[in-house]
């Protein structure tokens, strides 16, 4: 027992010692990062971490911002809202960061938002697509920004694309019941597609842990003819669905959201040969001839050994938008927030970006066509 008390006492003392250090004059510019780095969801967090690190490395190589080096203070929230709140509190009050990047998914970002507001340090999520992320009840949360378009926007884009470009009349929707991403997309797509004069025959749900979709696909096949299959999910499951649908003889066009974009899509679909007549909306296309995009792809690939995904592109843009804001406003968190809010026509790899009243980016989407697993065509679509 005595030993235990000693240990506890030592810990308490070191705790007190830690609190002793107040904010020092910053020699570096500290930017907080609050991401899903472990657990299942780390597939979304890790590419963003790599993109942030790439951006920081690049800016520091160019001499930093106003001569100061940029330093990332990175914490893992493991997709746990409690951890996300703890991390955000620590970044804002202990590390005294200028601004916070993250999280990659919506749920932790929803928990970070109120903390950002309370301590007046902005939180910038590259890819939290849930519409509520930048909201505080019915009003906007002035301290939360995002770099991606929101779920409703993508739903609209895809519905229009299906009706107008593919001339589809009947659609079938599939999505994960355990993801709000899928549910929101499916709902908006359904509304818009119907408004365009189309008909959604059914919405089939499955869970995140499923790997076998044959039951749902068999049901779908039994519904008769349809023109397009909308799979509202990430590549991890969408790839499998594409492969299993093709093997069951469902060969209509398959469309999907930005989640489709992944180097693994073809493999998961059982080979590039299965990935034909597949379209997805996204933030940027590797087909783009823009030098910025090509440089990013080259740098990211050289740095990480992997091709960048939409998530890493968004994270990369978020980092640079933040750098620009810091450059123009200095390191005062409130001024940085104002500067970020005022961003207009920022030329990033995912498009030209400004913010609307709800701190969502105004930009167009790209719909990419895959043939034999390769991007063959990119269409810019405005809703």
């Amino acid at each position, binding site marked *: 027992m005595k030993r235990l008390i000693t240990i506890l006492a030592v810990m308490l003392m070191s705790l007190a010692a830690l609190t002793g250090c107040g904010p020092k004059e910053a020699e570096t510019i500290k930017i907080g990062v609050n991401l899903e780095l472990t657990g299942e969801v780390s597939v979304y967090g890790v590419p963003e971490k790599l993109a942030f690190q790439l951006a920081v490395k690049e800016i520091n190589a160019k001499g930093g911002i106003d001569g100061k080096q940029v330093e990332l203070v990175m914490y893992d929230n493991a997709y746990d809202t409690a951890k996300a709140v703890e991390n955000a509190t620590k970044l804002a009050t202990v590390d005294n960061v200028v601004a916070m990047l993250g999280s990659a998914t919506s749920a932790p970002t929803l928990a970070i938002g109120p903390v950002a507001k309370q301590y007046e340090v902005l939180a910038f999520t590259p890819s939290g697509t849930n519409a509520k992320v930048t*909201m505080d009840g019915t009003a906007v949360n002035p301290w939360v920004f995002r770099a991606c378009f929101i779920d409703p926007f993508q739903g609209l884009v895809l519905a229009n694309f299906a009706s107008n470009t593919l001339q589809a009349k009947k659609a079938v929707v599939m999505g994960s019941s355990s993801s709000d991403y899928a549910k929101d997309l499916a709902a908006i797509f359904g509304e818009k597609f119907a408004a365009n004069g189309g008909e959604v025959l059914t919405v089939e749900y499955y869970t995140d842990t499923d790997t076998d979709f044959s039951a749902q696909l068999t049901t779908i096949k039994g519904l008769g003819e349809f023109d397009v299959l909308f799979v509202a999910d990430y590549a991890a499951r969408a790839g499998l669905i594409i492969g299993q649908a093709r093997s069951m003889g469902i060969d209509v066009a398959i469309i999907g959201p930005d989640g489709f974009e992944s180097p693994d899509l073809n493999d998961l679909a059982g080979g590039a040969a299965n990935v034909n007549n597949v379209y997805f909306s996204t933030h940027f296309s590797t087909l783009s001839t823009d030098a910025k995009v090509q440089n990013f792809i080259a740098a990211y690939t050289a740095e990480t050994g992997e091709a960048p995904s939409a998530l890493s592109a968004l994270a990369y843009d978020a980092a640079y938008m933040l750098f620009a804001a810091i450059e123009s406003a200095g390191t005062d968190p409130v001024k940085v927030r104002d500067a970020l809010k005022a961003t207009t026509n920022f030329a990033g790899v995912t498009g030209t970006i400004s913010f609307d009243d709800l701190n969502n980016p105004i930009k167009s989407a790209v719909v990419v066509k895959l043939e034999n697993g390769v991007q063959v065509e990119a269409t810019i679509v405005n809703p």
Partner: protein
Amino acid sequence: MKNLFSKKNLIWLGLLIVFFFLVQFLIDIRVITPYYRTIVYWVGIFIILGVSLNIIIGITGQLSLGHAGFMSIGAYSAAIVMQNMPDMTGLLLGMLIGGLVSILVSFVVAIPTLRLKGDYLAIATLGVGEIIRIVILNLEITNGASGISNIKNLISWPLLFVFVVLAVVLSANFKNSAIGRACISIKEDEIASEAMGIHTTKYKVIAFIFGAVLASVAGSLYATTYYVVKPETFGIATSINILIIVVFGGMGSLTGSVIATGFIGIINMFLQSFAEVRLITYALVLIVVMIFRPQGLLGSKEFGLDKILGFKPPFSKKLRKEKST
């Protein structure tokens, strides 16, 4: 002497009051910064969860792996009520509703499943936890996979303190009563217990419901501390995190759970930057504790005042002497 205002109770009360104001003072002078406060909140909430699971596992001997399910009932009740009443009344009302729903659900679950023994019970309760999660995932009122966000933050040190003390004191009273003795006898030997005239099913159900209600209260506090509730938060991983607290602190030792939670809270803080190591450490702790010290940190003993102040044991839980074990 044997009443509510016994010397021992008064000393406890005094210590609690001192502790409360000490922490409040440290918060006021910002030695406990907002960040440490979030750690304190986590520890407080998980103390309630640990103690409540300990009632079921450590005291009654019924291995339950679905505790997070009951936590989610409280969390969602508070979240839903506070959508319309974002104030203290809303929180307390949500807590109350959560408690009632938990009683109902745990009763329905307990009657059939508690007939099962040991590992079968464990798997069945794991199933129950998953069923609760799946139901929440698919209900309209719980907002499905998105969960509920923008929950009013009402947590504060006094609020947390009141509920943690309440939960621990009630649990200790539970343990040190005829009901607690009946539960312990079930853990020791169910057949002998039944032969001693103890209605084992009844007491198992009581313990299960009691634990479920406390978990639900902890869930309500969770909701108001962390702004967001979503179904994944209350999966099997959380149930196992709570189990780790119970195992680490000692099965049957309420004070063990309290100390273990504090300990884990501090470890979490230090391992913040070593996220991957953290989960592996927990898994190892679980295995190593089971192999080398299956009774946990304190075993079934309590860390109490009796020994320190030399009181005569009020109930014979405390040993006058311990012979070779």
